[in-house]
């Protein structure tokens, strides 16, 4: 199935998504990777400089540049390896009502923490120019002291995709299924 979604999202908007479905996403998306995750977890809710309610987080460290008028523009913005954020994500999802996480490569054995509230979407790794082409606007940047790739960028997306549903709201995990199959295939290949 193919879906076209727009942030902010309610649980109902992502309920019907199942692993292997394809999603195109529009609306505001926030980037966050290692350092931003750490800081989000350390920051009390009332001191957060941005809202994550119904939001989408993109595991991405973009390459940005300032144009002649001082406005930020996106040069390249592909996904980074989501597994690095695996350990921080259950707590993250507990504290904030984020509905979509986007990244690449899947997350390590934490599909249960997505149950009933969030989905994980996999974007094609390396497709930085394609992703940049679907970013219509850079609304703001937070925590630029963390450095360009680690800062939180508020991006306005238009039909960002194709995004493959990797973990659905029921906790089904496409990546762990493929891993299980690969293990069986490995045993088959290795048999003398």
């Amino acid at each position, binding site marked *: 199935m193919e879906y076209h979604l727009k942030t902010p999202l309610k649980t109902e908007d992502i309920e019907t998504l199942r692993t292997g479905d394809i999603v195109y996403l529009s609306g505001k998306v926030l980037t966050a990777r290692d350092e931003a995750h750490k800081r989000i977890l350390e920051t009390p809710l009332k001191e957060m400089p941005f809202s994550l309610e119904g939001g989408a987080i993109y595991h991405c460290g973009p390459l940005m540049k300032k144009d002649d008028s001082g406005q930020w523009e996106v040069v390249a913005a592909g996904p980074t390896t989501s597994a690095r954020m695996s350990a921080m994500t259950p707590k993250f999802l507990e504290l904030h009502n984020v509905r979509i996480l986007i990244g690449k*490569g899947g997350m390590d054995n934490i599909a249960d923490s997505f149950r009933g509230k969030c989905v994980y979407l996999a974007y094609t790794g390396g497709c930085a120019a394609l992703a940049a082409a679907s970013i219509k606007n850079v609304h703001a940047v937070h925590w630029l002291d963390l450095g360009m790739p680690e800062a939180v960028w508020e991006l306005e997306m238009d039909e960002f995709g194709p995004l493959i549903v990797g973990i659905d709201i029921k906790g089904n995990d496409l990546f762990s299924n493929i891993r299980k199959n690969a293990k069986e295939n490995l045993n088959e290949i290795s048999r003398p």
Partner: protein
Amino acid sequence: MESGIKHEDIVQATVSAIQKAETVLTEDVVASLEKAEQEESSEVAQSHLKAILKNIGIAHRHSVPICQDTGIIILFVEIGRKISLLPDIEQALIEGVRKATVEVPLRPNVVHPLTRENSGDNTGNGLPDIKYSFNDSDKIRITAVPKGAGSENMSILKMLNPSEVDSIDQLVLETVMNAGGKPCPPIILGIGLGGSFDKAALLAKTALLGRVDNMDQQELNMLEKVNRLGVGPMGTGGDTTALAVHINKAYCHTASLPVAINIQCWANRHATAVIGGDGQWNII
């Protein structure tokens, strides 16, 4: 006799090689991805391959980096013995990386290993990683290889026992399986067999510089096995886990069997600048 190669020629040639490597993939890699897209049986895998091909087109047309992870810069520099009295080539290469960071532009990726402080210009103690060699020409060849972390982080080096020759295939397959979608498959595998601890890693890395469509029987057999794992593009399943396997071998100690597996994502980026004795240079 002093050569006609000036400091600035080396700087500019370095910038151009990095620019080309970051924005244009070599035709053999593109052709291999196109073939994979046509032959892929999984719909999800095909959507990844279509996105990759579309991305390559946009990056080329607009001269923007193919991937936001513009990597750390590795430079393979071949110096012709007929060239005498070079300018400070190392300083020129470093300057080329700094200039490319602004001009391409590149994401500032280089940090101190412990404090994680970003140097801001993609250089620092030990980076760019420059590997020199010599040939009999009157030219300098600078090959720029931007290496992203997603695939590099999944690479391994293992010192096997000499009796474990038969377990090399198993080690490769387990490495690819454990890496899953993290290194951005379809991958290219550079494998170094023999040498020493560090030599094996260098063999594996240089194996990535060969044409993807040029494989011997051992490499083709390994490729077939890797693709039977079914990891697929981005780890979401499919026929195309790897585009190519390249194996480099070197003699080693009788008590050793070093095996290095360097994983490269589909964006197998590299470009070479050749500087003639007169200072004229071009990108090949």
